[in-house]
């Protein structure tokens, strides 16, 4: 299988943040341990030294404080880019995100359009301890007023970040932890996305479409590459889960007639459900068989020794494709 070498996600995001801090004086970073330490994943390494403690702020250890004060800062005209240390520690900030950040624009009758980004390391596969390997993007995907991005490459994260800080409404960006330092990834079609918020067809194929996003995009691509040429799989990397670029998915399904959705977050009432439902409604006639979802069952992310049983691997993706195309 052909792989490509590229900068890890952490490096790309670090460079993008440095560039944004350079270009946009109103932008600042805010998060636990992002300054002196450079973040527990070192994504913000060197930025405090370069831009100072006022703009790269070691936040108090309180997620509601981080997002709540960012809302106030955004009201004052700044563009805060927050970091939550791990996906599993987002919950104390949910109130400020859902009832405040997401609604300020509407509450002000559009008189304010605060740009505010919350970066969240996410996902498992690195033997993390409890709460350190979760995927809760679907939780925010249904909240009106929030946009939710799930990049799978440094290039996409860069593009998404640059777009997010100008959007005028809050964006939550999920960064797969296991991609932070990964350099070798399966090759993908070079075609760029049609717009900053569009999905990307990262592999062209004719037999079946897989819609996916985030870290697992790489397992999907690997499965697709190894299945070919027997089964020719098209892979759509959604890049955003809210709003969803359903057009790209529907166009792909119109060509292939089959849809599988793969994600790492648990299945029930998840992103896959939304895509399956939308395609079952708007792409019904194109479907040659049932839309299927491959995602973990509704249970807590287990202790590290059992994470392999929980996570979706390349083999399972291949098996699922073969069942669907036999």
């Amino acid at each position: 299988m052909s792989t490509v070498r590229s900068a890890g996600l952490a490096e790309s995001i670090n460079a993008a943040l440095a560039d944004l801090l350079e270009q946009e004086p109103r932008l600042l970073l805010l998060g636990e341990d992002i300054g002196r330490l450079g973040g527990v994943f070192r994504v913000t390494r060197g930025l405090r030294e370069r831009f100072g403690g006022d703009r790269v702020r070691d936040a108090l250890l309180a997620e509601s404080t981080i997002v709540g004060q960012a809302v106030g800062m955004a009201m004052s005209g700044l563009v805060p880019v927050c970091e939550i240390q791990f996906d599993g520690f987002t919950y104390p900030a949910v109130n400020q995100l859902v009832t405040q950040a997401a609604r300020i624009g509407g509450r002000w009758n559009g008189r304010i359009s605060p740009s505010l980004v919350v970066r969240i390391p996410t996902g498992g596969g690195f033997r993390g301890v409890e709460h350190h390997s979760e995927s809760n993007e679907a939780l925010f995907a249904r909240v009106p007023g929030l946009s939710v991005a799930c990049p799978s490459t440094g290039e996409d994260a860069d593009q998404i970040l640059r777009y997010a800080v100008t959007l005028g409404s809050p964006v939550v960006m999920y960064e797969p932890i296991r991609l932070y330092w990964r350099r070798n990834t399966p090759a993908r079609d070079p075609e760029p996305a049609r717009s900053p918020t569009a999905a990307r067809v990262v592999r062209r194929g004719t037999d079946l479409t897989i819609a996916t996003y985030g870290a697992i995009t790489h397992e999907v691509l690997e499965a697709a590459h190894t299945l070919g040429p027997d089964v020719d799989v098209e892979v759509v990397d959604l890049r955003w889960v809210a709003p969803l670029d359903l057009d790209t998915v529907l166009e792909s399904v119109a060509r292939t007639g089959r849809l599988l959705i793969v994600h790492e977050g648990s299945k029930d009432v998840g992103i896959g459900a939304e895509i399956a439902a939308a395609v079952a409604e708007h792409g019904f006639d194109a479907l040659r068989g049932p839309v299927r979802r491959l995602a973990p069952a509704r249970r807590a992310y287990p202790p590290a020794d059992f994470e392999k049983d929980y996570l979706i691997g390349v083999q399972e993706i291949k098996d699922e494709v073969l069942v669907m195309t036999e």
Partner: protein
Amino acid sequence: MALKSESEYATDPDDDTRRSLLRHMLVARGIDEEGRQLQKQGALDLWLSCQGQEAAQVGSALAVGPAPTVFPSYREHAVALLRGVTPDELFAQWAGRTFCGWDPRRLRFFPYTLVLAAQTLHAVGYSIGQRLQGLEDFVVMYIGDGATSEGDMSEAMNLAAVESASVLFVCQNNGWAISKPAEEQMHTSLAERARGFGIESARIPGQDPETVFSACSRAAAHVRGQRAPYLVEIQVGRIHGHSTSDAQEVYRTAEDIERTRAADPVTAYAARLSGLGLVDTVWLDAVHAEVRELRLRLMKEYA
């Protein structure tokens, strides 16, 4: 921004200010009464009366002046009106037309926040943001006694203390969070709690607007002079139920309600200024006429 010494701020209201205090209190009372009326008639969906809290609201708002940005809770109608929110802009939200009837930026009076204590962190963050940009960073934030139990309030106090943010926290302790009495909501007082976080504070009675004005002037001087937060806890009475949906008779004794009514800060201050000869019937009649006019316009707009 140059720092001023505390003495540069007046702390005792002069006679014009005293008349102004009374005028704003009377106007707020009239508008509030109209809110209750219109709700009874079904023209408003809900009204949260500020009756009994006018001295605290007007006294604090006049003391800090027009410069600071105000982050209200949802009952600061007297502050809103004083800041230039028109009565019909104020009512629009309670008539179900909008989430905020006024222009928050122009008036530096931000939208009401119905999720309790959420505004506390916004206020501190806004102040920090303004300071970082070299802009006016004085912020006044209002909160009720009950809402202080929410974690966000404590987080905001800690943030303000650590960042030495120019935030004046005004807690109107009206003794109740709907039906839960303040003494069951906390073991100490907000003033003591603030000091625990390293925020200087004062606890004052809220019946006399001049006391409030003086204390808040001093508090504002502290915020400006030290560029540090301050908390004023003002003891006020809640004359009516928590909202028009609330029947306080269920959980409050008749005597307690009567006592609160009897200690009405508006009638007391009107009587006081009359007694002192600072206002006369002509002055009072003029204010009443103004209020009548405002109420008429509200009726036309909403009834």
